[in-house]
């Protein structure tokens, strides 16, 4: 028996992920709800992913329902893998594109992105450490994988729920807009007072913001 099925399962997941990432990006740009632009995508992606990821590391559930066959096996893992990857892309894109919505400061945006990458490493490391522990403790591969998946997904879900509880996009975006207005006011006041307008905060901006001309940060404000 060739290993074509396993290749297919992995390939389907990756292809779906690759397709969905730009699609989610395009559609979330034109989304505007009362929860914000990006958060609805995060919510739905979170539900999709958390709901289906555990089925990837379980015996073929559809086979138990509809009878064993190679095709059913492929359908089971392909389908759950595809849904997981759709949710994955939705979460990833919306989480990443949330940064410009909730902060105008370049420094703070960088800080948020750094924090995000740090937690990527921590997540990878903790999965590997958990796997090492479980593989030592349990001696049945099936049990190991189920417990590993459930533990990881539980920790991840708690983290995501913490995020969902604390980050409300719309108030933060509105606050940003107000702060930008205030910033602009004080900026204009200072320029009006006769200081030389040498702004260091947007050094990579092509046009130096002068009197009556808004710095780039304002234009990026949602």
């Amino acid at each position, binding site marked *: *028996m060739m*290993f074509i*099925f*396993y290749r297919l*399962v*992995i390939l389907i997941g990756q292809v779906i992920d690759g397709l969905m990432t730009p699609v989610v990006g395009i559609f979330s740009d034109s989304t505007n709800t009362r929860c914000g632009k990006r958060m609805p995508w995060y919510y739905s992606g979170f539900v999709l*992913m958390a709901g289906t*990821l555990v089925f*990837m*590391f*379980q*015996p073929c559930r559809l086979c138990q329902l509809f009878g064993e066959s190679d095709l059913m*096996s492929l359908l089971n*893992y392909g389908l759950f893998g595809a849904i*997981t990857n759709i949710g*994955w892309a939705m*979460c990833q894109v919306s*989480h990443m594109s949330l940064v410009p919505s*909730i*902060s105008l400061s370049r420094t*703070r945006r960088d800080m948020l992105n750094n*924090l*995000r990458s*740090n*937690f*990527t490493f921590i*997540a*990878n490391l*903790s*999965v590997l450490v958990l*796997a090492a522990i479980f593989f*030592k*403790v349990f*001696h049945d*591969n*099936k049990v*190991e*994988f189920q417990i590993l998946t459930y533990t*990881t*997904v539980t*920790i*991840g879900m708690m983290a*995501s729920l*913490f*995020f969902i509880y604390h*980050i*409300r996009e719309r*108030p*933060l975006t509105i606050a*940003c807009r107000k*702060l930008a207005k*205030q*910033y602009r*006011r*004080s*900026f204009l*006041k*200072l320029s009006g007072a006769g200081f030389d307008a*040498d*702004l260091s905060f947007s050094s990579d901006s092509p046009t130096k913001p002068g009197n009556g001309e808004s710095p780039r940060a304002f234009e990026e404000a949602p």
Partner: protein
Amino acid sequence: MLDDRDTGLSIKEPLMEATSPGLRMSFQDLHKLRLDALSKIQVFAYGIGHFLNDAAAALWFNFLLFFLVEVEPMNPHDARKAGSLAG
């Protein structure tokens, strides 16, 4: 429309200092001003918001292929009987 109460603004350092009379401020001070309403806990919450994704990716890329081939083979002949990982 939402007003200040709905937005739940938690801006500890008001920006108005810059425009209030009597207080001197230079352009260099401008970028010390807060440009978002994120509290520390919200920054942390943002950081861990991607944890599930990263954990899922780690599971997927490290273990899925092994799981499919060795633990739940679609065809029993595919399993190469590596036995338990612990053993």
